[in-house]
């Protein structure tokens, strides 16, 4: 949503004048304010929630990843230690005994027995010469004389000096691992000791990791063959369906989806001394349980806040728009009342003028008819005396009726008479402008006020003064184009006069028009003007003992200057 457009729409909807849109106006206003407030309130909430979620997610992940790495590292270390121990003991034996001693079946049996007492998991022990022939053997099988020379492990051990095999199924069909060490003898030939281990120890190490039933840990070799039984990913010597990151000897934690469709975290730790890698698997749902709980709580708070915000904003907007509407209606009403009073006072003034003018001839008719009546009454010989007296009486009665009417009219006009109050002209001008501001705003007319500070208060009639400025400013508004300018200035002219000027940059007036603007019934507005506005204005200002001056230039504008005495000197005026 474009904020500028929205704001423009908002102000426009406030200012729109036309009647058929008046009903729509408040609906649009309500909608715009509502959208704006919702955006302003909910946006930060959303941003905050997103940031918080992101931050928390990454921190919780760290909390999970580091323990997984530590655990994997420790277990890997146990495995490596296990292999290292076995290797080191057979290396020791190979170094401590001569080839001949080890070739002796009895000695080997004795050594093997001693080893069995000291180290767990040993199955057998055998000596192999450099040609790959098993020379002696201690253990449950009969491997004497077996030729290993063609086997890969034999070549490896000869080259590298030691060897750890992958897990394989031995003769008894349970998993074994072979460990071998080679030593070069004094005569230059090689001595190879080989021992077979069962893998029960592996399960112990994995069990010691203390995993929950949802998790899994196992060894695999470099080609992805499972070396210890896994809970979820196959038995020993099965191919593991998971893929792992390569390289690095530090445990790496990665997120994948397993073949069962579970989202899991995998810690993968390759061994440095052998072909193995330790794999630790934890389901994401499990480790992120706290996260999910928190997220649902946050979601609940978020949704309830949004609902609350919407409710409050709705109620607030409703109240706001209602207030605006009420204020508009009130102003409209005040303005209409004002206009009505103005109309009445205009009629009153007109009526008073007419009544007064008629009263004098009525008084003459009254006296003439009275005299006729007297003459007839005092003359005893007058013919048709009765008839004449009847006629004059009826004239006198009609005069009486007329005078009743004129007195009523004068009485009505008197109610519109001036009431002097102390008033601040600046305040009055601003008050008057409030009636016209709307039009000025809508037409983009700039109203500039240069009101003098400490302008002395004047004693005058509030309603009539409003009338004066309303008429002049209204004319200025009519004279300027859209986006025109009206400047209102007030100043202290001298010790007992205050001046106010209203300057516009509108069309201006010709000399011809300027001469007649204060004449009653003169108007340039055709049907829209009564031609009384400025005549009345002039009348009021004069009546207050003030003066009014106009300067105008065509296409440049007009300036009206009103001078008012600080204390109105009520004169006959109109």
């Amino acid at each position, binding site marked *: 949503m474009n904020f500028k457009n929205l704001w423009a729409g908002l102000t426009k909807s406030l200012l729109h004048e036309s009647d058929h849109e008046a009903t729509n106006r408040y609906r649009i206003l309500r909608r715009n304010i509502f959208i704006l407030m919702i955006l302003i309130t909910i946006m930060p909430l959303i941003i905050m929630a997103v940031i918080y979620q992101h931050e928390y997610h990454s921190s919780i992940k760290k909390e999970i990843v580091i323990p997984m790495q530590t655990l994997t590292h420790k277990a890997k270390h146990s495995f490596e230690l296990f292999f290292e121990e076995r290797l080191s003991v057979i290396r020791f034996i190979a170094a401590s005994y001569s080839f001949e001693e080890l070739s002796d079946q009895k000695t080997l049996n004795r050594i093997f027995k001693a080893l069995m007492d000291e180290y767990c998991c040993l199955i057998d022990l055998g000596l192999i010469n450099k040609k790959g022939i098993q020379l002696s053997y201690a253990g449950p099988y009969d491997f004497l004389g077996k030729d290993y020379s063609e086997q890969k492990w034999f070549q490896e051990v000869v080259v590298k000096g030691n060897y750890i095999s992958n897990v394989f199924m031995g003769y008894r069909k349970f998993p074994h691992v072979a460990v071998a060490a080679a030593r070069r003898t004094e005569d230059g030939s090689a001595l190879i000791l080989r021992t077979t281990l069962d893998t029960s120890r592996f399960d112990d190490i994995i069990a010691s990791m203390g995993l929950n039933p949802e998790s899994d840990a196992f060894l695999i070799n470099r080609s992805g063959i499972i070396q210890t039984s896994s809970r979820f990913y196959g038995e020993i010597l099965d191919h593991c369906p998971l893929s792992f990151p390569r390289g690095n000897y530090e445990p790496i934690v990665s997120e994948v989806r397993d073949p069962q469709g579970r989202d899991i975290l995998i810690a993968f730790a390759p061994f440095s001394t052998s072909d193995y890698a330790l794999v630790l698997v934890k389901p994401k749902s499990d480790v992120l349980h706290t996260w999910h709980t928190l997220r649902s709580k946050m979601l609940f708070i978020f949704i309830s806040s949004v609902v609350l915000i919407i409710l409050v904003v709705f109620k607030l907007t409703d109240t706001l728009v209602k207030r605006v509407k009420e204020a508009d209606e009130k102003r409209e009403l005040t303005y209409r009342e004002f206009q009505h009073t103005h109309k009445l006072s205009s009629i009153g003034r007109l009526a008073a003028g007419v009544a007064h003018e008629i*009263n004098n001839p009525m008084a003459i008719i009254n006296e003439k008819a009275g005299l006729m009546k007297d003459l007839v009454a005092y003359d005893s010989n007058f013919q048709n005396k009765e008839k004449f007296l009847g006629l004059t009486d009826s004239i006198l009665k009609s005069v009486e009726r007329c005078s009743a009417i004129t007195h009523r009219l004068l009485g009505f006009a008197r109610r519109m008479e001036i009431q002097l109050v102390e008033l601040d002209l600046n305040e009055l001008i601003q008050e008057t402008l409030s009636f016209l501001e709307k039009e000025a705003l809508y037409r983009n007319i700039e109203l500039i006020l240069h009101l003098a500070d400490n302008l002395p208060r004047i004693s005058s009639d509030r309603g009539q003064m409003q009338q004066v400025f309303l008429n002049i400013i209204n004319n200025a508004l009519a004279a300027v184009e859209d986006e025109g300018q009206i400047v209102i200035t007030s100043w202290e002219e001298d010790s007992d006069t205050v001046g106010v000027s209203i300057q516009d940059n509108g069309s201006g007036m010709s000399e011809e028009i300027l001469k007649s603007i204060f004449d009653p019934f003169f108007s340039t507005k055709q049907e829209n003007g009564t031609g009384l506005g400025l005549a009345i204005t002039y009348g009021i200002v004069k009546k207050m003992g003030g003066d009014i001056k106009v300067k105008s230039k065509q296409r440049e504008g007009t300036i009206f200057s009103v001078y008012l005495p600080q204390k109105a000197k009520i004169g006959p005026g109109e």
Partner: protein
Amino acid sequence: MENLKILLVDDEEEFVTTLAERLELRGLQARAALNGEDALHMIEADTPQIVILDVMMPGLGGFEVLRRIKAQHPQIPVILLTGRGSEKEGVKGMELGAFDYLMKPLDIEELIKKMQEAIKSHP
């Protein structure tokens, strides 16, 4: 009341002369002045017993004439005539010393009654 000397002051000639004639018919001595200055001169020349004075006049206004009469001859009662139908004017006049005020058009009987009252209160 017989031969009461009255001065009528009003700028409307038709009105004032006709009224004077009617009062004469009733045996009173009525003279007419058409403006304030004339009225003041006539008062100096031949002091009337009562003055009937219109408020609205060009030149010296009714109130000004009233003020001057009251300054020179406070014993002469003055009745004001007002065409505006405004009690305010009447009240203002009475504050300046007028005996009473009447609205135009006049009822002649009421005028005579008011004059009698005025004479009684100004022996």
